[in-house]
């Protein structure tokens, strides 16, 4: 674990990259390295976080332009090798736009940018991203998004349910997401995308530590 390094991707318009790095380094003592989006060399990182923000100004659609960056092109092989990728907020949008995760994220039902703490049910811990062993299987994480309404067709939703790919559901759906979905994984479990921000819940002094487990699980093999 000493040399384990998490790559934190920086797109033009990313704004949670430093928060992620702070949470990993300062709270968990996990080494990080910023990866500029034009880099395609992922050889010296062991896991990757696509942080929140507004990559490329959210032009066209959230995550649509980021998908064509050299780094995202290189991500396919990284994911296939079984290494772990965590997409938070805009990172989740990028993962759906680029096809690593199914569905899409569209404007919140009430059109508001919602900034709040939300209660989430841990539905599945496929890939070991969440602690669902304890009795308490609800966590509280902050959300901050204008386009976080998860949408997919009914066939996709059935596949998500049948394969236990739904990781998190909102207790009180804030944005109109299908089936209250807040986060999903791929089939293998090594890719997680979620709208809530675990990196903003890593220290009691800023409101909670329910995000620590997910960030810590980046180092799982």
């Amino acid at each position: 674990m000493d040399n384990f390094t998490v790559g934190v991707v920086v797109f033009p318009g990313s704004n949670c990259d430093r928060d992620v790095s702070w949470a990993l380094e300062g709270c968990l003592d996990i080494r990080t390295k910023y990866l500029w989006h034009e880099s395609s060399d992922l050889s010296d990182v062991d896991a990757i976080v696509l942080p929140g923000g507004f990559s490329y100004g959210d032009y066209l659609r959230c995550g649509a332009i980021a998908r064509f960056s050299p780094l995202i092109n290189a991500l396919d092989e990284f994911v296939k090798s079984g290494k772990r990728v965590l997409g938070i907020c805009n990172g989740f949008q990028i993962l759906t736009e680029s096809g690593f995760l199914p569905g899409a994220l569209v404007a919140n039902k009430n059109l508001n940018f919602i900034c709040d703490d939300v209660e989430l049910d841990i539905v599945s811990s496929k890939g070991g991203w969440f602690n669902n062993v304890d009795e308490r299987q609800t966590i509280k994480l902050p959300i901050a998004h204008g386009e976080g309404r998860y949408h997919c067709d009914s066939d996709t939703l059935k596949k998500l349910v049948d394969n236990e790919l739904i990781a998190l559901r909102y207790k009180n759906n804030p944005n109109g997401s299908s089936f209250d979905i807040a986060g999903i994984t791929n089939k293998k479990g090594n890719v997680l995308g979620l709208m809530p921000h675990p990196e903003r819940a890593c220290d009691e002094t800023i409101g909670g530590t329910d995000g620590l487990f997910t960030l810590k699980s980046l180092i799982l093999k």
Partner: protein
Amino acid sequence: MDQFAVKVFVRLRPSVLDPAGEATKSASIKLGAKGIKSLRIGKMIEVKIEGNGENEVREKIDLLCDRLFANTVIEDYEYSLEKL
């Protein structure tokens, strides 16, 4: 090489809720417009492109629409093409 002006229309699929369209519909009614049954907002993209004939240009535009202009999980697209 022929040059074409292409107008691409991208729309949310009918099954996807369009809250911006709903809000605009509500404002339209407040303005006093009567009889509005539905209002949905899409995008229009104008492209000038050259290629060897219409078929080749259509192939290029199809690729752009499928891979970039629209996210076919939530959006449909159509386009019109005019030779310049």
